[in-house]
């Protein structure tokens, strides 16, 4: 029972923390709850489909279908988070300046909400398909212990949702003026962590083979399978034995999102408009 609890719990927090951050980011935006809900629902449906066709997916593309599938949806999430952050950077300053206009402004940029709904759906789909397969295994195996395991799974689900809720409520206690800066930073690190996981799957698929040596091993200090390690893994992409390429891509993703957000910030755009000739494009 404890084993089932732990497995379901850790999959749920991985998806749940992402959902919590997205909900905190879009708090107060009209339609954001509905969008997040739709994202979760689409994710659960997707997870069931992925679980049902797990065998077929694994055997696709010369046996590396599962890796390529995981890498693809992670890269999709990274793109969506990047786009959201750049959008927020170009609109965020006036939003922060007048909190009352927040709802209105974000409504006009509702496409950013769609990007976040996709992130939610993808996170739920990826972690949910593992839970679905695990639960299917329990039911298929049958026996006297399966009821115990199902109870454990339910407790794991509840505990995972609780941790996700703590993330959300922790974030929304941050004053609105600061929330933008905090969530932008969180999403940047979240995206970098997902990019690094995508690299791991591409390396596992054999698509990418350079820099596959282990960059460091901190598993004895903080294992990324421990609870705290797993939360850090989800939040900032902590890994106790990353490959060199994972570290490089992690840093490159951070730098890219940071540079793009800077470039599209209103102040920067205004200055460019003032002196286009001097800078020569």
């Amino acid at each position, binding site marked *: 029972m404890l*084993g089932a609890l732990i*497995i379901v719990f850790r999959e749920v927090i991985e998806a749940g923390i992402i959902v919590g951050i997205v909900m905190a980011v879009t708090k107060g935006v009209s339609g954001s709850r509905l969008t997040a809900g739709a994202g979760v629902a689409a994710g659960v449906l997707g997870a069931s489909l992925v679980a049902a066709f*797990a*065998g077929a997916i*694994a*055997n696709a593309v010369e*046996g*590396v279908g*599962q*890796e390529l599938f995981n890498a693809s949806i992670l890269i999709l999430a990274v793109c969506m988070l990047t786009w959201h952050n750049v959008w927020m950077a170009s609109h965020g300053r006036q939003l922060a300046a007048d909190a009352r206009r927040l709802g209105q402004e974000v409504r006009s940029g509702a496409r950013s909400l769609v990007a976040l709904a996709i992130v939610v759906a993808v996170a739920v789909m990826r972690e949910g398909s*593992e839970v679905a*397969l*695990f639960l*299917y*295994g*329990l039911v*298929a*195996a049958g026996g006297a212990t399966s009821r115990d395991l199902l109870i454990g799974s339910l407790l794991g689900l509840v505990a995972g949702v609780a941790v996700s809720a703590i993330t959300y409520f922790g974030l929304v206690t941050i004053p609105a003026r600061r929330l933008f800066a905090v969530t932008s930073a969180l999403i940047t690190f979240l995206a970098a962590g997902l990019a690094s996981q995508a690299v*791991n799957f591409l*390396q*596992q*698929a*054999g*698509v*990418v*083979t*350079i*820099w*596959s*040596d*282990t960059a460091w091993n901190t*598993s004895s200090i903080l294992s*990324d*399978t421990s609870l705290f390690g797993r939360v850090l893994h989800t939040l900032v992409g902590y890994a*106790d*034995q990353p*490959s060199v*390429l994972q570290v*490089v*891509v992690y840093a*490159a993703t951070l*730098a*890219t999102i940071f*540079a*793009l957000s*800077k*470039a599209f*910030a209103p*102040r*920067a*755009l205004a*200055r*460019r408009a003032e002196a286009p000739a001097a*800078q020569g*494009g």
Partner: protein
Amino acid sequence: MSPSSRKSGLRLAGAAALVLLAATASAQEAAQVRLTLKDHRFSPAEPTAPAGKPIAIEVTNLDSTPSEFESKTLRVEKVVVGGGKITLNVRALTPGRYRFYDDYHEETTEGFLVVK
């Protein structure tokens, strides 16, 4: 600050693309390791593989329930459905013992890839 930072952003994206291109260079011939999974146990539990070349681990699941082959040190995780077969690509390794397990039944399944 804007045009220069925008340019540096583009330069970074370009560098990342180059890294990915360079990275797709073809892999060496891989050493084969075959494992089966029955009653949530790996057989053999301690397969051996040569050091210094990529390894392809083939896992056949003889159980009717799904499993997930996972290893932190080998840096792989992959689902194998009941009655299914998967292949995992592992990078060239230095000699040592690398632990792997079925993520869904970690308490009963444990194995070590012995690299020498």
